[in-house]
């Protein structure tokens, strides 16, 4: 069924785009403007007369195929909700927990004494765990809805920015700023996780 929706969509795109590009020139002096000048309305009516039917059919097929495909996708997401995992086997909530643990394991106190160790930890978070979390993006949007996802990802982005700031501050030799940024990142991550859990709880109660 999904395949059918896809091909209806593709055929609609091709038909509407081909007929949309059809030239239907209006002869100079034959327009409805003063002294037969060609107006924009003349151009649109001339093209519409030449391409209306196939163009409209194409647009309808495109819209119909697209909507049908989305509907099937939604149903598939709903049925796959329970088994949501990434290549590593972890769902988004688990990846957030892993990030939190990684941040907690960073050396405490004066970071100036362990710059390389902390930077390596931050690198792991930014280059391995954040991309792993973002692999679930499409799925999370489908499950949480765009509005709730937007609120959650806003907090998650604040965590990312502060983690990146800590990395930059260490590179620039200002460990005090890195310490503050890591604390801010931890707070933002907790808020993102709370928003994620709230949304997941809402989805569960809705399905129950």
């Amino acid at each position, binding site marked *: 069924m999904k395949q059918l929706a896809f091909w209806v969509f593709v055929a609609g795109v091709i038909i509407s785009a081909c007929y949309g*590009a059809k*030239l239907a020139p209006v002869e100079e002096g034959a327009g409805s403007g003063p002294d037969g000048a060609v107006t924009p309305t003349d151009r649109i009516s001339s093209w519409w007369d030449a391409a209306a039917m196939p163009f409209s059919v194409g647009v309808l097929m495109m819209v119909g195929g697209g909507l049908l495909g989305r509907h099937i996708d939604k149903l598939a997401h709903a049925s796959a909700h329970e088994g949501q995992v990434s290549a590593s086997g972890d769902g988004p909530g688990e990846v957030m927990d892993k990030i939190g643990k990684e941040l907690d394991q960073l050396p405490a106190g004066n970071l100036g004494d362990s710059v390389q160790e902390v930077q390596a930890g931050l690198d792991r978070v930014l280059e391995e765990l954040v991309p792993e979390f973002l692999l679930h993006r499409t799925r999370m949007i489908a499950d949480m809805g765009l509005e709730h996802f937007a609120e959650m990802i806003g907090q998650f982005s604040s965590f990312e920015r502060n983690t990146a700031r800590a990395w930059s501050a260490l590179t620039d030799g200002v460990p005090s700023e890195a310490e503050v940024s890591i604390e801010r990142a931890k707070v933002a991550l907790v808020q993102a996780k709370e928003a994620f859990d709230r949304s997941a709880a809402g989805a569960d109660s809705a399905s129950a």
Partner: protein
Amino acid sequence: MAAAAPVYREITTAGVVLGVLQGVILTASFVYIGLKLGFGLSGSSVAAIMGFALLRGVGRGVLKIPGAGSIVENNINQTIASGINTASSGVVFTFPALLLLGMEGQFNVWTIIAAGVAGSFMGIVVIIPLRKQLIEIERLRFPSGVAVATILKSPGAGSEKAILLGVGFAFALVLTLSTSGSIGLIPETLSIGNWIMEAAGMEPVGAMGLALGGTALSLSMANFGAGLLSGKGGLPFALGGMLAWWVIGPFVVGQGWAPEASGEELVGAVYGSMLRPVGIGILIGGAFAGVVAAFPALRGAIKSLQSAAKLAKQGGGTSEELSPTVLVVGLIGSFIALFAVTYVEGMMGGGELTIGTVVIVAIAATLWLGLAGLIVAQATGATDISPLSGLALIAITLMLGLTGGHVILAVTIGVAVCIATGQCGDMMHDLKTGHLIGGVPRKQQLVQFAVAWIGPAIAIGVTLLLWKGGPGGMNGFGPESPACAERLPGCLPAPQAEVLQQMITGVLEGDAPVDKYVAGAAIGGLGVLVGLAMYLPFEITLGYGIGCLTAMGIERVKGYRYIGNVVVPLAAGLIIGEALTNLTLTMIKLIGGGA
């Protein structure tokens, strides 16, 4: 007593002054380049590299300022410099058309500067919710933003990534030099389709002639690098190009709808009169559809901005974000500014517009400005390409229609739109860079607000200065200028402004392909990227698409971590290498009086 903890330098006098100085110099230079060659350039990577040399090298090394030239301070420097010089494209693509149309003395230059400044501010305002939408929610790649972040992070990124950045840079440098006009060892574009036709002894006619004749590959490494950084996300752009040149084009030729022609002439006719106008329509329709589809996310983004501001207030601190109040005040302010500009140009001094028309023009200009900003932000986020001149052309067409052919007002609004959209694209790249290096978005937006007025004023001033450099204080540029008529080295043909001049004449005479815009807009659900692919020549789309497919293949074989560790620095090197080599070559050409 313990020593005070060092302050992490972000917004500093040195960073701001250097950013402004670089911005002013780059604006003046890029106006000249734009009038000479017809394209705009971005100054972000130049500013970031100069920032390292001056803020870090001189500030920390020579002047012994502790912590000078930090990564985030240099980010502020490049944000300011690129925020100022982005106005050069906006002005060069639009304003000179008034001079070429012989309207000097009929317009008020201060009104045009005011429109440009209003556009510049509005470009930044529109970005407030779009930053959340496109960088945080949609996760668009913004290839140039990633490339500049790679430069900024290079002091701490480790030798492996620095080497990859260098390899990419060197490869792009060699290839760009080899393909440049003055050296020309390798063609800039591979005419693959034409070679196939020659080998098979085919005539360049009919559907197959168009499909093959239109198939070419640009050897631009920046283009390929942007595709590498975009990966799967950029695929609709590549597919849009294939749809245009391998399906729609051959179909319309096969049906006998295209003008009678062959070879390059056929390719040019189908592209110019069919594919490109429909692409412009899809760009507009796609932006509308995008706004509707993204409405819940935009609402979520604004909610998130509100809660961030609330939390910061409760905690006694300042939010990392500008509040939604700034968005509302900025939009109202920009509308008032555009209304004032329209009122002055359309009603004062014997202007023929009614107050009703003035209100409609100001509303339409504000709405189009916001929509065009969204189009550019999406297009540049996914592909690094921004259709600035096309969007300005639409704005001017729209204004000519609404005002019954008031050319000066239409171009004035076109200046505002072109500067605003340029500002949107640049600000989004800068904010992406900031996101990756840990800059505070609010600080970046505030400094950009503070300097937004400088670029339009400098760019318009330099354009007028060059115009008045001609004999008798006029005709300093354009195809009819004495320098160009006599083919002197100082010729500034102003190609984009000439196109706009012809387009204005065409619209006034009823030649604009409005039917294609309407048809494209009706199928705009395909999205901005497909529209952009039809709007651009296939050689660009194909090169970019190969980059996307390469990145997807690498990710499948090596995994996404390999992309971050190897592909990103390499692609950043390719983009920066080509940009800086082209900039240097252009400067050398201009100094030598060539081009």
